[in-house]
């Protein structure tokens, strides 16, 4: 299956390449005429179309009104951009389709290689490098969304918990890398290791600063595959995120120094440089926070415009980037902290669909940009202009980068470990030092270098590219084996459980209390204070009132678990074809535990009374406990099975009918995304349909399947209906297959009492119904009664069969109400009333049917 899938994808890839090559001749001509300016815009793929079309339509354009004109230049730029994105996307598609390759070679490395090929093709066509990653495009259009995405999806608690370490690595580590590399290269230069180069100390430092940025993409991809422990993950992730910002700031400072010229630098300028470093970094972060709070505030009031709600997040995020750029603050740090600070509030404030839109779109943007960046990094290599070889410079840079990264990490960790509760382990340090891959930011900065000030710009670009290739490809490939070989501590893959969530909260409170008692101001104390502050001010101001109230992490987990259950329940139901599995003893075993959970959650009172029985029984028999509440159900199981079967089939049909109706009711609206919320019409039609069927079949009963909401209605209705039915009840009914439903008339015939369930399937199979005259007299009263399932249509198309209900997950409140109903149909009304208080009082007597019946008789 997988193999089959790959073949077309490979074909697609090769077709793509062939198209490129076939387009080359056209590119040759075209590109050279039209765009000698080396804009970094998409290539060539469109050109074959153009050249063909040119010939085709050229003649028709001669004289008179042209029917069709070919206007390539009109659309050139956007067309190329779009094509470029398409190419990058297809590249990723091809690469991802070969999973066995990406397991060994990281995707980023493959994308770079793909870029090599594309670049080679383009170069072969033009003999000139037309497409390069240009810093404007990179910094304004490609980078922001990546950073915003990482900031937004940053695990906040972990991030701030390890903030100290991350800051140390990101700020001090980056400065160390920059300074040590610059100084060492300068030293080697002075020692004559590089021959004749026109690079001064400041330029070396500038180069050192630009290449200090660590790119996380490849490393993070490996980490995600291998699930390394969360501390290592957050250290690498956080560091690489912040040090992008720090690098840019550092780069700007040194750039200013270089512009100033060596001679004019004195102590004052250096101090100003250092101050500006901090002002730019912290100013940018602060600005980001302000924008983050703005977004949060805005999303508080956007519930009226849900459809453009997500756009605010992106626009304001981008604005924070641009504003910081405008104020010459650190734009990367700004957008990082914008994402970090707003995530909590916008996730709470916005509608769930908007939140997932934001998440998804962010991933789309970030992933797309990343892909494009790596492809371009590859393409950029194919350019004779930049290849200025200087063995000494290049090899020494590679060597120093590697060595100083290791020294830096080990030294800083050594200091940090003296203050950390959980020391960073040796193996983690090895991985961290080895994970110092350089990426696009370094290249982007290198292309920003001013050629008039730095004579050897091309050498620097060339070296940067080589460093990027070397680290991303070689280190990237070896990273995974290394992680596995060193047996890096993996993260425990834990399922979402309530008890873990609860316990971690308990731990938090406990630690704070112990810190209070032992009288020290520690990490937990600070966090607690911050939480209180946040609760009191930030949340109050930034979060919607309604959300604020319903917010509780334990409850949230509970909610998520319930959702998961519901989803797996529905999936199971669909897989087995509606509710077929109701019949099958083995089938609902999957739900066994969940059922008990939900069931016990549903009726805490009943659970409490039955807890003795519960404890005595195995989980399997616990399932049976509930059905046994109504003994007659057991007796009738055999009959019921066949009946349910038919009703299931019946049901499937109903469901489809309903859905079909729903599908037709999709309406287009630019501002509303709702799939017809007013179901009234649908319900009416549905109800009518059901009534018709009832009249013709006269049977039905045993409604089927119970999506949760439905059952709620069922019960209410049943409770209301029961009194009517009760008057005509007789002893025989008690043993009939359908006594769970109030069909007094149906049983009155006596015939139905003995084998009531058999005729019904027959009529169902006949399809058209009506045929059985014996039942026709009974129809009217039944229709008038409107059996319970009719009343539920507002909630959904499916009426739950009692038997199905017994074994399915319930919403808590439902089962509690349902339980008394199941026990006996005869005296339901009085019983329901009598039972509720009884259950609440935690009646000692087990709720067995016999007792209850006895009581109610």
């Amino acid at each position, binding site marked *: 299956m997988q193999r089959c899938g790959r073949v077309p994808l490979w074909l697609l890839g090769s077709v793509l390449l062939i198209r490129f090559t076939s387009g080359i001749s056209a590119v040759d001509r075209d590109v050279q005429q039209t765009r000698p300016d080396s804009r970094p815009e998409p290539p060539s793929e469109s050109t074959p179309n153009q050249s063909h079309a040119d010939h085709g339509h050229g003649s028709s354009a001669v004289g008179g009104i042209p029917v069709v004109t070919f206007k390539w230049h009109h659309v050139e730029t956007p067309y190329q951009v779009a094509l470029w994105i398409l190419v990058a996307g297809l590249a990723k598609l091809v690469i991802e389709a070969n999973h066995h390759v990406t397991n060994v070679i990281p995707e980023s490395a493959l994308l770079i290689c793909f870029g090599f090929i594309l670049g080679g093709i383009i170069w072969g066509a033009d003999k000139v490098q037309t497409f390069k990653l240009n810093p404007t495009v990179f910094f304004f259009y490609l980078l922001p969304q990546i950073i915003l995405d990482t900031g937004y999806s940053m695990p906040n608690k972990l991030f701030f918990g390890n903030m100290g370490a991350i800051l140390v690595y990101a700020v001090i580590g980056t400065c160390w890398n920059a300074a040590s590399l610059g100084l060492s290269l300068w030293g080697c230069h002075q020692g004559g290791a590089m021959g004749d180069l026109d690079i001064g100390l400041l330029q070396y430092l500038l180069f050192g600063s630009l290449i200090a940025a660590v790119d996380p993409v490849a490393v993070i991809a490996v980490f995600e595959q291998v699930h390394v422990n969360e501390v290592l993950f957050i250290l690498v992730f956080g560091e690489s995120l912040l040090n992008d910002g720090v690098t840019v700031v550092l780069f700007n400072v040194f750039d200013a120094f270089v512009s100033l010229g060596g001679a004019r630098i004195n102590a004052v300028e250096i101090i100003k440089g250092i101050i500006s470093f901090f002002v730019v970094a912290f100013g940018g972060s602060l600005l980001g926070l302000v924008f983050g709070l703005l977004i949060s505030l805005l999303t508080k009031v956007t519930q009226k415009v849900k459809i453009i709600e997500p756009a605010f997040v992106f626009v304001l995020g981008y604005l924070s980037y641009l504003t910081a750029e405008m104020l010459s603050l650190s734009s990367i740090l700004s957008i990082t902290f914008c994402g970090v600070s707003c995530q909590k509030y916008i996730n709470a404030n916005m509608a769930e669909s908007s939140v997932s839109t934001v998440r998804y779109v962010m991933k789309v943007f970030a992933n797309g940009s990343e892909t494009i960046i790596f492809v371009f990094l590859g393409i950029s290599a194919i350019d004779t202009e930049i290849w200025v070889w200087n063995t000494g410079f290049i090899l020494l840079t590679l060597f120093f980068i590697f060595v100083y990264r290791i020294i830096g990490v080990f030294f800083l960790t050594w200091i940090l470990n003296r203050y950390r*509760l*959980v020391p960073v382990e040796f193996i983690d340090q090895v991985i961290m030092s080895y994970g110092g891959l350089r990426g696009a930011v370094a290249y982007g900065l290198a292309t920003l270098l001013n050629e008039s000030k730095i004579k050897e710009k091309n050498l620097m670009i060339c070296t940067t590219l080589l460093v990027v290739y070397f680290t991303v490809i070689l280190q990237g490939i070896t990273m995974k084996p290394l992680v596995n070989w060193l047996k890096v501590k993996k993260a425990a893959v834990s399922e979402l459980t309530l008890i873990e969530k609860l316990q971690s909260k308990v731990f938090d409170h406990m630690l704070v*209390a112990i810190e209070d008692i032992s009288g020290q101001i520690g990490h937990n104390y600070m966090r607690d204070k911050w939480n209180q502050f946040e609760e009191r001010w930030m949340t109050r101001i930034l979060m919607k009132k309604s959300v604020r109230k319903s917010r509780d992490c334990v409850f949230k987990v*509970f909610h998520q678990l319930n959702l998961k259950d519901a989803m797996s329940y529905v999936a199971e139901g669909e897989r087995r074809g509606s509710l077929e599995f109701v019949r099958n003893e083995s089938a609902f075993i999957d739900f066994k535990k969940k059922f008990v959970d939900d069931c016990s959650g549903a009726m805490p009172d009943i*659970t409490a009374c039955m*807890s003795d029985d519960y404890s005595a029984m*195995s989980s399997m028999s616990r399932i049976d406990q509930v059905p046994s509440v109504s003994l007659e159900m057991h007796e009738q199981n055999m009959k019921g099975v066949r009946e349910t079967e038919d009703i299931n089939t019946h049901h499937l049909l109903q469901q489809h009918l309903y859905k079909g109706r729903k599908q037709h009711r999709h309406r287009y609206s630019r501002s509303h995304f709702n799939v017809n919320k007013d179901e009234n019409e649908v319900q009416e039609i549905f109800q009518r349909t059901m009534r018709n069927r009832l009249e013709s079949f006269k049977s039905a009963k045993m409604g089927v399947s119970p999506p949760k909401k439905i059952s709620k209605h069922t019960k209410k209705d049943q409770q209301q209906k029961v009194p009517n039915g009760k008057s005509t009840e007789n002893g025989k009914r008690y043993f009939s297959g359908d006594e769970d439903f109030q069909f007094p008339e149906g049983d009155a015939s006596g015939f139905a009492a003995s084998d009531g369930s058999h005729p019904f399937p027959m009529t169902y199979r006949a399809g058209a119904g009506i045929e059985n005259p014996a039942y026709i007299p009974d129809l009217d009263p039944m229709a008038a009664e409107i059996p319970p399932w009719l009343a539920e249509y507002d909630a959904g198309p499916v009426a739950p069969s009692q038997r199905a209900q017994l074994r399915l997950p319930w919403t808590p409140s439902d089962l509690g109400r349902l339980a008394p109903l199941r026990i006996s149909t005869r005296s339901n009304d009085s019983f329901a009333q009598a039972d509720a208080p009884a259950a609440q009082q935690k009646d000692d007597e087990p709720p067995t049917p016999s007792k209850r019946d006895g009581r109610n008789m």
Partner: protein
Amino acid sequence: MGSKASTLLREEEIEEIKKETGFSHSQITRLYSRFTSLDKGENGTLSREDFQRIPELAINPLGDRIINAFFPEGEDQVNFRGFMRILAHFRPIEDNEKKSVAVSEPLNSRTNKLLFAFRLYDLDRDDKISREELLQVLRMMVGVNISDDQLGSIADRTIQEADTNGDNSISFNEFIKVLEKVDVEQKMSIRFLH
């Protein structure tokens, strides 16, 4: 204050505490000065009231539970030894401790940490967290916005997650088992200042 405190503490006592709890000499003297500053009655023991005077504990949802944990069953005074014994549960596990197999299990071992946490729930000390006990803790932890019914469901579900023998309560073994993947060593440790 610190110097005065340490003079009150005899050297051999410090040695014993050191052996029992694994705290360093300086940590013990520092915590002793904290102990005496909490001890308003100046009788060498702490009462519940002494703890309750700590303002932060009043706003800690589990504050009272944790105070209770300091007092052995049936007593309402705790001396410095007992005080330190409880705090020792929160000492991080150090590398050398992991390797050396101590004669008796140190107070800050994973099991002891978990036992401490377990006791916070288990008020009646029957080595089981019953539904009622869990509900009480839950009630302390969640806001008033969650209804009793919802809370009941949460409690039931929580018990179901841990309960393997079907007795509708969580025994200590089940508690250990269900928190197997949680990094208790880290989550139940604080850095005591030297």
